[in-house]
């Protein structure tokens, strides 16, 4: 386990470095944005005096590098500061949104990952059959539709026409799990349709890629049935690419769902970030970006660690 631990530490350090670079990058990017928070919030009613007063209140009149260092100092101490726009603690502001985002992602993942893996395995097992073709064409189509379109279609039928599920996903505060699951079913289903195809195709491809391997033929020559060949001999060796694509899709479920949030009025982190970019609320954008990037880095690391853990070559050295 020791080399594994060392790798983890190295990757975490690299991840932190990446996060730092990203924070600097985002800060500079927003600095370059025309207009700032004060002008955006005051909008049409901004006048030079009110803007100046607002800037003074928020400390935006300080030079950029000082503000960045100030922010960085706070961030290193775990304090992401307060939102410029509404003065709330960013930690608290993000926590609720992030919780929602995680909930939706977990919901979608809990359906899509097992679904994708089993469909992928079945398609690989019955490759070339009508089932394989059907699943292939169906999944291809589902990734070919724009995400918002899938969302609207689901909304039209499952909500507007048949009234099975609510059209907006907001479940208020203090809802029980059943209510939460019910109210967020449509966004979760949209996401399931979007990510399942990708994972399923990768699972199938990863398995089929291995079928030309000599040890697969050896398994057949030992009398193993097709199902055993796929499950016992191909799958364990295909885990690494599958884990990778699952991790990528999980990252997507957490970081890429702005559109679903908009359509279903779901108060997630993506919407928060879009709002904050529009309002030039740098600390919030920074924090949200860092969370997203951190999630991405951690999921990737987890995928790599898992891939190592499931690969005896890397796990048990000579």
């Amino acid at each position: 386990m020791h080399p594994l631990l060392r790798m983890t530490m190295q990757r975490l350090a690299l991840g932190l470095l990446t996060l730092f670079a990203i924070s600097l990058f985002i800060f500079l990017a927003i600095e370059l944005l025309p207009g700032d928070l004060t002008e955006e919030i005051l909008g049409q009613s901004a006048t030079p005096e009110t803007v100046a007063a607002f800037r003074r209140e928020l400390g935006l009149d300080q030079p950029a590098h000082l503000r960045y260092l100030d922010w960085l100092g706070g961030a290193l101490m775990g304090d992401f500061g307060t939102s410029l726009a509404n003065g709330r603690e960013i930690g608290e502001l993000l926590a609720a949104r992030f919780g929602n985002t995680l909930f939706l992602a977990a919901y979608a993942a809990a359906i899509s990952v097992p679904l994708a893996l089993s469909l992928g395995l079945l398609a690989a097992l019955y490759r070339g059959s009508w089932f394989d073709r059907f699943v292939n064409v169906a999944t291809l189509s589902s990734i070919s539709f724009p995400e918002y379109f899938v969302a609207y279609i689901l909304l039209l039928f499952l909500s507007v026409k048949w009234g099975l599920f609510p059209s907006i996903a907001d479940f208020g505060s203090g809802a029980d799990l059943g209510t939460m699951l019910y109210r967020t079913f449509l966004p979760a289903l949209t996401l399931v349709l979007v990510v399942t195809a990708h994972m399923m195709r990768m699972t199938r491809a990863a398995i089929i890629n291995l079928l030309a391997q000599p040890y697969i033929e050896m398994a057949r020559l030992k009398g193993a049935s097709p199902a055993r060949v796929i499950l016992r001999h191909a799958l364990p060796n295909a885990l690494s690419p599958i884990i990778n694509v699952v991790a990528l899709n999980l990252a997507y479920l957490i970081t890429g769902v702005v559109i679903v949030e908009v359509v279903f009025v779901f108060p997630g982190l993506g919407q928060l970030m879009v709002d904050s970019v529009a309002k030039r609320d740098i600390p919030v954008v920074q924090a949200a970006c860092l969370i997203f990037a951190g999630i991405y880095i951690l999921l990737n690391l987890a995928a790599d660690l898992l891939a190592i853990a499931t690969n005896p070559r890397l796990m048990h050295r000579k």
Partner: protein
Amino acid sequence: MTFTDISRRGFLATGTAALALGPTALRAQAGPKRGGAIRIGHSGGATSDTIDPATYAAGPVVTAMLGGVCNNLVEIDAEGRAAPELAESFEPDAEARVWTFKLRDVAFSNGARLTAADVIASFNHHRGEDTKSGAKGLLDQVADIRADGERVVVFELTAGNADFPFVAADYHFVIMPDDGSGRIDWQAGIGTGGYTLEEHEPGVRIRLKRRDDYWKEDRAWFDEVTLLTINDPTARQNALVTGEVDIINGVPPKTVHLLGRRPGLSLVEVTGTAHYPFPMHCDTAPFDDVNVRLALKHAIDRQEMLDKVLKGHGSLGNDHPIAPGNRFHAADLEQRAYDPDRAKYHLKQAGLDSLDVSLSTSDAAFAGAVDAAVLFQESAGRAGIRVNVDRKPADGYWSNVWLKDSFAMSYWNGRPTEDWMFSLVYADGAEWNESRWSNPRFNELLVAARAELDEGLRAEMYHEMQALCRDDGGSIIPMFANYIDGKNDRIAHGEVASNRFLDGWKVVERWWAV
């Protein structure tokens, strides 16, 4: 259908009017009753929202704070009048320069009684060097605010203003309690209104709960109100259709005809003061020639634009900003129509054979702005004027394009009074004089009319000013938009105010569940 002849009162159009004979309408007439927990799907919310009155902008916060949690000194009623709210009464002096407001004896939701100090602190929040308030400009005319005892507040203006009570009704000037140091503690969300603020998740939802001890006995009917931010118009519409919410604001014009036809739903539509000017900089060639301005004004097909951009849900504009619903609207002023020949004639007067202009636009100006520009391009083309539609980024449109480009599209929600609207955008030297128009006669009339307390004389003056705007001004104003809200049959209401969406943002206080 044209709306040029409607009364200045709030106009209830197709949806509700058509249903007026139905059972719902009958029940609605049975009178308001208490109870119900309702949900409102509201546009304009953002995560950056705060309940700081200084940063209010159209959105759920205003609907909640103005109509639910707080009161103003004055409110604008369904007739479009300034009616006393927290003020028991208000009186001007002879020059309309000193206004005295007598306060009611009412309690904030924290139990404290309303005093003059609270009013002064609330107004001062928008005054002075350090304020970031969007309403700062409105109070520039206020030289001093002082208390005259516990329950009297005196506003001393720099010059007479007969319409000052309307200013006091502005949504920024909600009254919050003084924290003892002359400032308001807006974070606490305390007001004298019919509801208390239970939850505010910015950009997500606001939850209000009824106060049992509200001083208005015939208002604030709902037990609980939840305002959900739904910025996507399609999502908002779906939420209403699926019964997720009971009321939505801003029904998208594209589907308004379809939504209105759905059983169980109805539209609440009023012709408001919102309008879409295309200001031309009068100090910049070629717009410095009044003939060029007139050519362009004749080259726009108002009816087509109203039909296509607003789907007929609005009324024709006559190149001045005074809406049909305003008190001194000049209804008898001849309606300008699309006339390519007149446009060509004016071009010739300006010594031009043809004209190329560039119109800056973005859907940030208003929904459908780009469509409107395209329509203008087509109609102007037939008058020999080439309009180049220059699309600008939505982001930063108000800071980078508006007021800067010599021909751009703009949007005004309008103001309840002629003076306010003219002073804000058309007066010489006004900060937001978007057309850089300076007409001495107009400016003279503006000052005179402001301090004039005789209604007849004022009407004459404002009539002339509207004509000046129309024939000399720098803005093409093709149409006024209706405020269209949607609701289901659970909800009933009385006469609807024509300023802004949702009964002048007073839906929470004025409407009820049946």
